């Protein structure tokens, strides 16, 4: 509730009157929307009197470490339960998390595996429950209650993630909260799978559960459950995973109660608070060891998933003393009718992952590690979108925001004598996988995705190559799944999977880890389709590090008008196992072969048609001329790179038959290339005279600031912009309307409109 702004000249209300007005406004609130006071804040809540007292009573480091480990083990146990029993593919392959939250709602301890960002963001709905439901006589928070939540505007990343939240009481007093979150997939949105790229408003995004009570006396309320099941495409999944999350929370509750019985509530409360305060203080200390500096970078999103355009994520990272400030001002304005916006909490959650997964993995996993770090954004921007903007594809902006952060942080870390990890080039950041849905071979309606989303090529580090398709940037210890298991439930095969995509490289002294090819084809259903939700088919979504290169770009390829299952049965020699061969050789005579950007809206597929993509590579590190020739040869032998590309880029000379390196010739070729660089390179001052332009190019639809002028945000063309602080609507036309207009103007120019009346 906002304070009243009273004109100076008018009679000021007395304190009693102000209190009365506040009470009136609170009592008559029409709608409890997302609370900016909660949603804009990611710091720890102030230490409460109870916490203060408990910390005075129990401060022994050994007791606290012992209890923290017990709670941590409890969280890990809950995590295992969800992973083993969860029905969602995301759950099976580790896209889950469990955590314990303080009585005020801060995440104190999370499970060691899983998607940290989820629980780093569940504190928002818990704080909403505390603020609004605890004292509401029609709701209340009691022992045995459980609350459900998925609407990202009230916290968390996107509406496909559902949380179960339980208050934990001891002798009638609330001592903490536990929660479990799963990337469920299906949520009744306009497209199956829970992450619609077609959403043009929040109303297209399916279930929008602000935090509400769905469990009483530890029982799921059947009437509400039925309503939720009735709102999604997978009623069975909805029920099963609500139960799984509830029981995981109950197991953690059991572990907490054991601690309460042995050590008492003061010890538990002190442990949770002390852990958070210690981590927060340690982060301040570690930051103060970094050099005082400003680092600038930007990452380009090359599509809204509906159309290709240039969308800037602008990042200036400044460290002064023990303060670290991410300034994302100058990033693209929010899109009024495109789903790639994120709420700012989502961006912060992903930035927290930079630190907890890549910089300080030794710190206890919780909210405190990011609590003292500051984030600045423009209002109504793609990284801080408004309530009315769709955000079901917020991953696009939180992932590119993550990469901007990861890239900037590396430039601070290099000079630090104190390191907890190696300096790391950006890891690939897009979920190059297939989202799928329809009616299965068993007659069930399904909507979800291939767990290959968890395979992202890792960035190279200061002394080694990046790992291939190892892990996602948003989780630790996640798996890419077993397609053979999925095939028992879904009516399509991955005909090629886990085969590295040759020449889709990120070169460097140490190269980025590479991604693999996925070819899918529907088999046993007439009502089955796919979608893909990635950027980067025209403009790489990464930057390289210290002279290393980023990845290339990754398109979607389709082969239609063929049934490859017939081909495999009758003429198996015609089938090829790489995108390169199938698209270039076109082995199926009658088929059509097309390429597309990676924002394919849900599309029904026919039996045996091929949809082909590749996962992406992490960025390279260092000057590629310094790469050990043996590493280049190994990449050739492992099918990562063709010999011609290897020789041309890395200037390694080798025998084409034996791959034996000619070291002298290699050294000479590399020396020659260094001289060639000096010959072709243009001195900076001269270069920018020809290169720098005052506005974005007219041939691109460009969104965001240009250069350092962060006050002016372009909105699609050099003559359309907004003041960074003054939001304006930013509508995109329907891509099909754009295409129709193009074709009509061509027809008109040819005089072929047939005299159609206007």
């Amino acid at each position, binding site marked *: 509730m906002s304070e009243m702004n009273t004109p100076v000249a008018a009679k000021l209300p007395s304190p009693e009157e102000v209190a009365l007005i506040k009470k009136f406004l609170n009592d008559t609130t029409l709608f409890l929307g997302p609370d900016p006071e909660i949603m804009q804040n990611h710091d720890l809540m102030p230490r409460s009197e109870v916490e203060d007292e408990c910390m005075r009573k129990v401060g022994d480091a050994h007791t606290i470490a012992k209890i923290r480990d017990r709670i941590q083990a409890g969280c890990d146990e809950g995590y295992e339960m969800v992973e083993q029993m969860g029905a969602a593919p995301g759950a099976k392959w580790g896209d889950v998390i469990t955590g314990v939250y303080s009585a005020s709602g801060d995440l104190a301890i999370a499970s060691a595996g899983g998607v940290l960002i989820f629980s780093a963001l569940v504190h928002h709905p818990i704080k909403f429950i505390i603020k609004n439901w605890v004292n509401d006589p029609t709701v209340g928070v009691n022992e045995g209650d459980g609350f459900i939540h998925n609407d990202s505007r009230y916290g968390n990343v996107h509406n496909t993630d559902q949380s179960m939240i339980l208050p934990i009481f001891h002798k009638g007093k609330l001592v903490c909260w536990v929660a479990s979150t799963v990337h469920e997939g299906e949520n009744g949105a306009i497209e199956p799978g829970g992450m619609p790229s077609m959403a043009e408003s929040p109303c297209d995004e399916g279930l929008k559960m602000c935090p509400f009570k769905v469990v009483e006396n530890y029982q799921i309320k059947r009437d509400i459950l039925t309503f939720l099941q009735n709102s999604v495409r997978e009623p069975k999944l909805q029920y099963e995973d609500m139960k799984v999350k509830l029981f995981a929370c109950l197991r953690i509750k059991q572990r907490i109660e054991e601690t309460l019985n042995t050590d008492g509530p003061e010890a538990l409360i002190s442990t949770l608070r002390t852990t958070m305060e210690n981590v927060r203080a340690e982060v301040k200390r570690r930051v103060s060891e970094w050099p005082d500096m400003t680092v600038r970078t930007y990452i380009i999103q090359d599509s809204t998933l509906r159309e290709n355009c240039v969308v800037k994520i602008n990042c200036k990272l400044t460290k002064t003393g023990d303060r670290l400030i991410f300034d994302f001002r100058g990033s693209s304005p929010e899109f009024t009718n495109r789903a790639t916006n994120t709420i700012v909490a989502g961006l912060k959650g992903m930035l927290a992952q930079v630190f907890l997964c890549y910089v300080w993995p030794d710190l206890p996993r919780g909210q405190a590690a990011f609590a003292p770090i500051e984030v600045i954004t423009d209002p109504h921007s793609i990284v801080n979108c408004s309530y009315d903007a769709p955000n079901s594809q917020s991953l696009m902006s939180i992932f590119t925001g993550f990469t901007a952060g990861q890239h900037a942080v590396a430039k601070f870390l290099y000079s630090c004598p104190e390191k907890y990890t190696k300096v790391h080039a950006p890891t690939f950041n897009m979920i190059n996988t297939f989202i799928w849905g329809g009616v299965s071979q068993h007659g069930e309606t399904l909507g979800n995705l291939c767990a290959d989303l968890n395979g992202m090529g890792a960035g190279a580090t200061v002394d080694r190559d990046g790992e291939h398709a190892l892990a996602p940037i948003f989780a630790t210890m996640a798996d890419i799944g077993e397609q053979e298991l999925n095939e028992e439930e879904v009516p399509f095969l991955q005909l090629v999977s886990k085969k590295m995509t040759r020449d889709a490289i990120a070169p460097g002294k140490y190269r980025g880890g590479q991604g693999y090819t996925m070819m899918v084809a529907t088999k046993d259903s007439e009502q089955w389709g796919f979608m893909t939700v990635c950027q980067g088919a025209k403009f790489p979504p990464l930057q390289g590090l210290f002279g290393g290169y980023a990845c290339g770009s990754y398109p979607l390829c389709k082969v239609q008008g063929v049934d490859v299952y017939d081909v495999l049965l009758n003429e198996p020699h015609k089938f090829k196992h790489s995108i390169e061969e199938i698209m270039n050789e076109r082995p199926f005579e009658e088929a059509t072969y097309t390429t597309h950007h990676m924002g394919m809206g849900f599309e029904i597929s026919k039996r045996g048609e091929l949809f082909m993509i590749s996962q992406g590579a992490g960025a390279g590190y260092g000057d590629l001329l310094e790469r050990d020739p043996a590493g280049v040869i190994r990449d050739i032998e492992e099918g990562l790179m063709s010999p011609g590309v290897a020789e041309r880029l890395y200037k390694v000379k080798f025998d084409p038959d034996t791959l034996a390196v000619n070291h002298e010739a290699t050294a000479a070729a590399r020396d020659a290339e260094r001289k060639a660089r000096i010959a072709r390179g243009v001195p900076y001052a001269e270069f920018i005279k020809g290169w720098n332009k005052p506005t*974005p190019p007219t041939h*691109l639809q460009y969104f965001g600031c240009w250069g*350092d002028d962060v006050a002016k945000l372009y909105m699609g063309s050099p003559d359309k912009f907004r003041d960074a602080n003054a939001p304006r609507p930013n509508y995109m036309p329907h891509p099909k309307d754009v295409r129709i207009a193009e074709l009509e103007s061509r027809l008109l120019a040819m005089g072929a409109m047939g005299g159609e009346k206007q």
Partner: protein
Amino acid sequence: MKVLMTEYLRIDLDAEQWECRVCDHVIGSAGKSYKEGMLVHNRDPREIHPPIIDPEKYRFTFSPDPEWVRILEYYCPHCGTQVETEYAVPGHPPLHDMEPDLPALRAQWARREEVKEAVVGPAVTADKGHGH
């Protein structure tokens, strides 16, 4: 006192200069961007990220679109080492990517020993785990 800032760059805190770590060339004032002392090449991204499928036949080829993105390669003018790359929108001014606060840096390093070999950081080593 010299500080190793990147794989290829260091700052001489006394002279307030950027230097090349490969050839010791003095690049320029540390009060300005090191890029100002570099040679720049505007690289067609298709040369680094080769098309995997035939550009004659297809709109998307696994190569970045050269009308959308260029790779700015920054070379040491003395030894030709590629110190930095920048994937840039055509015409976008190069970023002042590292702008250190020199007095603060000097004060910080006054408390430290000079580091001559970059600190690599801890390796991830396999745990012994448990057998079955």
